[in-house]
């Protein structure tokens, strides 16, 4: 029961949605559309679960007085306070927009902007020329970096053309091969999931 029921639900959900692609039929389409709507709703519960999980972890840190539990206090307070503001005042309220604009957005942008520094450091320390393949990789990277900006155009009008050619022909050919391979893999795994042969995602052993 504990194993069979989830497998049956997986199969029914997948089979109906897949059948809708191949068969024209009113009840199949209606059921498939309903299933897709339900999945969207379940995704919302999953999103909520993700946030709740962070809360539980840090509340546990507080209770057990784990290292840096003081930081967990700050996290829990920020989370709870802003959730209450959002739910009570909705996301259209002035305070929500203020915090979203000036705290959340700017912190998010700045955190990820740190990557600019780290990518420079990584390029310096780790990008090594070792043979034909790394030479191709490096040449392609340098051509795209210089060809897609004004300094490349200033050096030579051919650089942007070369960068565009690299992206459009060899780059596209390589990516297309990966896309085709990836699509085959996705179909294979998808079928295995629907048929119950791939159960790792639901927490059951295969």
């Amino acid at each position, binding site marked *: 029961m504990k194993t069979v029921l989830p497998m049956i639900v997986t199969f029914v959900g997948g089979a109906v949605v897949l059948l809708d692609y191949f068969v024209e039929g009113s009840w199949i*389409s209606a059921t498939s559309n309903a299933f*897709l709507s339900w999945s*969207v709703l379940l995704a919302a519960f999953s999103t909520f679960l993700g946030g709740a999980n962070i809360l539980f972890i840090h509340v546990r840190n507080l209770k057990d007085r784990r290292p840096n539990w003081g930081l967990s206090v700050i996290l829990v307070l920020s989370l709870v306070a802003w959730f209450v503001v959002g739910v009570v005042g909705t996301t*259209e309220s002035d305070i929500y927009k203020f915090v979203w604009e000036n705290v959340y957005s700017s912190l998010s942008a700045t955190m990820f902007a740190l990557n600019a520094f780290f990518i420079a450091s990584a390029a310096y320390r*780790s*990008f090594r020329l070792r*043979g034909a393949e790394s030479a191709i990789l490096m040449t392609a990277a340098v051509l795209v970096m210089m060809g897609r*900006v004004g300094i490349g155009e200033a050096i030579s009008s051919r650089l*942007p053309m070369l960068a565009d050619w690299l992206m459009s022909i060899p780059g596209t050919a390589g990516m*297309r091969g990966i896309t085709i391979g990836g699509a085959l893999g996705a179909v294979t795994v998808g079928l295995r999931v629907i048929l119950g042969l791939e159960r790792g995602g639901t927490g059951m052993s295969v």
Partner: protein
Amino acid sequence: MAWFERLKPRFERFDKIDSRYIYLAVFLSVLLPLFRPIGLPITVGEQTREAFLLVDGLPQGALVIMSPSFAPSSDAEVVPQMMALLKHLMSKNAKLLWVNLTVEGSMYATRAMDSLKDEFGYEYGRDYVITPYLPGQQTAIASIASDIKGALTVDVSGKPVWDMEAVSGVSSISDFDLLIDFNTGDTCIYYLQQVQPKGVRVIAGASGVTVPYLMPYLGSGQLAGLLGGLRGAAEYEMVSKTPGLALGGMDAQSLSHAAIVLFIILGNAANLAAKSRRGRLDTGADNGENQGFGYENQGGTSK
């Protein structure tokens, strides 16, 4: 190489340079052009021109889906694209349906429309509708493609969507003239898989990192247009004659790229100098089979 032998002692010193000097160099390469713009040339590429012509060819009052599928962590590239395209669409009196697949989407939609609606005389409900967060990414897109009226029932304030004048004539997704997805991940590919086969043309406003993955779809004709990164935004601003933030940032982008290329060259020179000093050639830890990146010294903030 005699010149390299002469310069080797200097290159060796660079091998163990503190990362903070690298960070400072990057910071200055971005800051200095902002103080003193250089005015480096930019030409409009074919991809951007195709996207521009597609939007320009839309009839007045065309129905367009706008999908901001990005987060503040990557809005620096995509928001300038979105604003440039939005100005162009609003100049053609397009009716806009904002479909939001990320938790931040509706906030960006609201901010973008609030900044431009007075200039173009747009009114909520009559000219545009903003729908709330729709989770599930690929499943959500499949739901929209199959039954858009069932998938998007209410707007951000809870009012019924399909009673509004902007979208009142819609019966299915195929009634839309264009879909523009502003993305930093896979959402555009999902749109191409689920929505484009229904006859809706798709343009991508993509961050730089997504562009290579979309090129096969551009080449096959599934993707009707592609704006790539800040450069794409700058090109669209140029071709649509609506200068904005993207054009202003291109000089800084140029110098920072030049700095990265210099670091790659310096890093390899320093490594070569240090290796030959230690008396062995660098053949790679895997006997030359894996000829990709080398991972010798991990960077970060440590010395």
